[in-house]
């Protein structure tokens, strides 16, 4: 049931988004780009709506999507990054970590990367001030971080996701 609902939602949202591209020639790639921006990937239901609305066979849409590495066909596993900005972490340099995330991923509090892979949130004290400044990624705790560690953490999770999700 829940799945049907989300499929319907995807169809509706795609329909809305496509009004912008519908009657433009050669707009397929840009439309698919927008769809990925919205969902973080290009869902099958969105492809079907695009095929219908833009009068392009699925075979061509799928050929385009698989030709460019940029497009994702599966919902990427979200990597939720929590950066603590509680007092202890704040003093120990949480802001430097947040700056590093912004530089590497372009993310501020509450934002998700365009491919849907990383989500950043700023949290209050996580109860392990001894390890400040603290980052928690999908439940795994990293302590005593420096801005340089941020890069390593991102690389580590990228690799992990590529392995398990094929994205």
């Amino acid at each position, binding site marked *: 049931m829940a799945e049907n609902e989300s499929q319907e939602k995807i169809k509706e949202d795609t329909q809305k988004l496509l009004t912008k591209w519908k009657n433009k020639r050669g707009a397929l790639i840009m439309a698919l780009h927008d769809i990925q921006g919205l969902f973080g990937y290009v869902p*099958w239901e969105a*492809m079907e709506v695009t095929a219908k609305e833009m009068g392009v*066979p*699925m*075979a*061509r*849409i*799928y050929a385009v999507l*698989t*030709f460019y590495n940029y497009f994702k066909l599966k919902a990427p596993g979200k990597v939720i990054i929590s950066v603590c900005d509680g007092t202890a972490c704040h003093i120990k340099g949480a802001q430097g970590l947040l700056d590093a995330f912004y530089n590497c991923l372009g993310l501020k509090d509450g934002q998700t990367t365009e491919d849907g892979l990383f989500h950043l949130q700023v949290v209050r004290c996580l109860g392990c001030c001894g390890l400040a400044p603290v980052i928690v990624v999908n439940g795994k705790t990293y302590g005593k971080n420096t801005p340089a560690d941020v890069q390593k953490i991102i690389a580590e999770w990228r690799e992990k996701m590529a392995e398990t999700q094929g994205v």
Partner: protein
Amino acid sequence: MEEMITLTIDSKEVKVPKGTSVLDAAKMIQVEIPTLCYHPDLHPSAACGICIVKINGKMLRSCCTPAEEGMEVITRDPDIIEARRTVLKLTLSKHPNECLTCQKNEMCELQSLAGKFGIRANAFDNITPTPFEMPKDASTKCIVLDPRKCILCGRCVEVCQHIQNVWALSILDRSVKTHIAPAGDSRLADSPCIKCGQCTAHCPTGALVEYDDSERVWSMLQEKDNYCVVQIAPAVRVSMGEAFGYEPGTVTTGKIYAALRKMGFKAIFDTNFGADVTIMEEGSEFVERFVNGNGVLPMITSCCPAWVDFMEKFYPDMIPHFSTCKSPHAIVGALTKTYYAEKIGVEPSKIKVISIMPCTAKKFEILRSKEMFASGFQDVDVSLTTREICRMIKQAGIDFVNLQEERADSPLGEYTGAATVFGFTGGVMEAALRTVHYLVTGQEMNKEDLEVKPILGVEKGIKEMTLNLAGKEVRICVAHGTGNVETVMKRLQEAKEKGEEPPYHFIEVMACNGGCIGGGGQPLGVTDEIRKARMAGLMSDDEFSEFRCSHQNPSIKKLYEEFLGKPLSEKSHHLLHTSYQPIPLYKR
């Protein structure tokens, strides 16, 4: 006057019409250039590079290079041969060495080129990346796609997308992962594929072939209790000879009957008998709709299962327009297990009906709906393509050429000229009109009018004409190749939107180019020349028939007297008619 161009090929001057490719220009002076991705039916994809020649000193692909005034072409020198060998070696280095067990063995274009070029060892063992492994897709039970044997020539994609307008297949991914598959890597059975088999008729290798049911038929023939009955489609009689060295279009009906009898079939029937029944039913249905106003117009023919599949997927709103009449082989199946079974006193459960078809989609049709079990059993047990039966005859060691001609068995073996023309585009319409004319006017058509010229022929994809029937205009349209359907449907739609009368009353569609004579299960290597020759063969079969209209067939008259009553009777409806349902393009 066409503009002509003069060029030199291997020091020989040749004049060709403007727009001719260098490859075709060479063919005109009997200079052979090897090809692999090129096919005369299709737009050149220029994917393989084996057709390379030197033009004014530059290496170019001849299949996609237009001839130009004053061009100097060299088609063979040691450099060119070396380049061609390299193309072949690279292709072979990614190809499984499975010729011995491959369904295309002896029929494969890659294999024969490798033989011709004397490639004896895999030269690129070490540098080739592991080929992209993908499982076989036999999900349709009509065609089989084995991506490992695919050389990415693009022919199947071209035919599926641009000739058939189905878009089941496309080229997916890139670099070493490039492969042919339906969108989403769906199974073909879950894709828009209509099983027309045109991809298998155009694939140069064993990557796309017909689903082989011949072993099942051999075991049916072995089983002592079985009463095996066989029937051959109209278009098979003019193509089968090709596998045994005859010119395309040679009518070998009598030898085919003889060969089938030697293989052990107990009764040899002819799908043409079923075609005559189809005309009785479909013709009456048209008269009901056209004269008596019972049912919507235009009426559309339904004897091509790939076309039916296409309509159910792409134009489900057209369902009420379809004739409900089954296709000829399904009719012969249903009548064999009822009418004939009663006549000879054999338990229908013991009867196995095998149909020999030019078609891969027929394999799907025999299972497509509950109406295909109208006799209480599966009406047609197995449908074989022309290619499969030719292999079986060779396996049996039958000397086809020297066979004495034989006759089919009675009563489901007698047919008229109207039935035999079912095999090519325009033929079903023509056959129907002969009988419709009789049903409406009570008079036979004049002999000179029997061949409705404007709707015959393979050149034009859409053919139209208006016919006068007892003072009323009948507007007719004939299309072949599902790629031509969209235009016809648009015309219908536009008229509807404008509130006008439909532009046609009666439409015939056959999914394959040229109709069944160019069917997806026919002997390979088809070109328009061959299609025309096969069509001419069927037309002569018609011309020399004793009866040329379905309603004149004495066995058909008897069938209605003894068994069915009259066309569109309750019994006819139960045994000879079917229904249609919308089908989604993709199943996930």
